[in-house]
């Protein structure tokens, strides 16, 4: 049994990293096409090996630690960002049996791990001893903290309906009833949209990417990083988005549940689809200002999330939702 645990863990970790690598390629290709460009074309057929070339390049770079940086924190932060982003993947069920960690407190744990990912970001920003990095980290923390609340609230909707915090049972509930975005649509759809928004903001993606707004902050926390350490920050962002889409499809789009065929396929399909939609958003929308961001989170998303939670509770008390 432990052998199975090792194997499935290695499998899921490798899958997540590979999918992320090719997600990188796919994003650049998609972004290129959306801007009437070609995207990567040189390395491998249709540029398919671009991520590998990128990795090889990053690995060879000279690591530079800024003069006055806090060396230990500076070195530790980027690998930790990737680690925390990756850890969430363990909790996502890719099939009725295929989840490295099938834990009963899955939903809060995922949110906690997502929140934990903030700490290395702040570490990186503080340790760089660079004003851009510090400002970026400050914004990142403020933003993730604000959007953490709507994230928890919207994640509560499936929890209330399924009566369980175990991701696998939530999917099983959707398998027995309906996918949450389908029915009850007035709960599932808004909760899904809010969840996506909050997730994007937590992962610091456009349109919520003021922490690394390259036109004002150079590159935010990654300003001072070179080589693989920069790569880790970059990787963490992509892993975060990918795993975030996996979580969103688990909670709202029925996870591994599909009408036919193997369940893993459905899960991967939904995740990749959602991933692409997020990149579509990314390459279409403009960045919000810091104050607009905060206002959006606290004035609109939090009350809306609370309303959804209470609505879900009322719905479960009615004869239709029992």
């Amino acid at each position, binding site marked *: 049994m432990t052998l199975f645990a090792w194997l499935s863990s290695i499998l899921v970790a490798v899958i997540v990293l590979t999918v992320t690598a090719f997600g990188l390629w796919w994003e650049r290709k998609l972004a290129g*096409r959306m801007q*009437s*460009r*070609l995207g990567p074309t040189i390395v491998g057929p249709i540029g398919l090996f671009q991520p590998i070339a990128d990795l090889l390049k990053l690995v060879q770079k000279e690591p530079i630690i800024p003069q006055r940086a806090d060396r230990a924190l500076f070195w530790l932060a980027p690998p930790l960002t990737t680690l925390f982003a990756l850890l969430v993947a363990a909790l996502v069920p890719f099939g009725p049996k295929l989840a490295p960690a099938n834990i009963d407190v899955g939903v809060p744990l995922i949110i906690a791990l997502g929140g934990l990912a903030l700490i290395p970001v702040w570490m990186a920003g503080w340790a760089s001893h660079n004003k851009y990095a510090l400002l970026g980290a400050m914004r990142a923390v403020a933003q993730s903290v604000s959007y953490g609340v709507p994230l928890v609230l919207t994640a509560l909707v499936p929890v209330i309906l399924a009566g369980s915090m175990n991701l696998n049972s939530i999917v099983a509930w959707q398998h027995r009833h309906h996918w949450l975005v389908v029915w009850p649509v007035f709960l599932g759809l808004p909760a899904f949209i809010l969840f996506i928004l909050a997730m994007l903001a937590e992962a610091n993606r456009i*349109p919520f990417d003021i922490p690394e707004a390259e036109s004002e902050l150079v590159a935010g926390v990654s300003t001072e990083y070179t080589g693989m350490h920069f790569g880790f920050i970059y990787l963490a962002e992509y892993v975060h988005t990918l795993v975030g889409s996996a979580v969103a499809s688990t909670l709202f789009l029925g996870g591994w549940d599909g009408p036919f065929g193997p369940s893993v396929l459905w899960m991967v399909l939904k995740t990749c689809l959602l991933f692409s939609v997020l990149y*579509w958003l990314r*390459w279409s*929308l403009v960045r919000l200002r810091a104050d607009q961001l905060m206002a959006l989170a606290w004035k609109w998303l939090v009350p809306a999330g609370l309303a959804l939670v209470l609505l879900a509770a009322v719905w479960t008390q009615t004869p239709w939702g029992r």
Partner: protein
Amino acid sequence: MGYLLDGLKSMWTTALNAIRPPFTQEFPKVLRPHPERYHTSFALLHDETGDEACTGCGACARICPSQVITVKLGKRESAITQKKRGYADDFTLDLTACLVCELCVQVCPTDAIVMLKVPELPGFRREDLVLSMPRLYENEKSKPLGWSNATKLMAMQDPKAGAAKPEPSKETAPAPAAAGAAS
């Protein structure tokens, strides 16, 4: 609200873009058709007797707004016509700062300097973009020359010739890729 509507609009645009064929073409592999008067790099020509046409007068060096041309004048007997005349002992043109204004071409009294239809390929060092005299004479032989020379350009600007004639707008066929790659 406005943000939402604009966001949806831009998402529609990007979605349309994604299914349209891309606009970009990969430069060295595919060359776009250039307009007739497209001009980039330079060449120095030989005259009808087969001698170097440049007399080393330095008019081009003086008019160049970014002063990237240096000419060293030398006087000697022509090996072909046996007449004593001016030569450019040395001629350099630094493409890194050239504005492609074509003024040097326009002022040349002997139509010696002209521009090319194909660009120089990018280099790895700055010196790769400095055209020395041998390179300029090499360009004359190996690359397609541009439309203009001093005579044509001056004729165009002659007030006695009446209103400027509209340029022929027909597009020339793309230059062969081999010419672009052979620098």
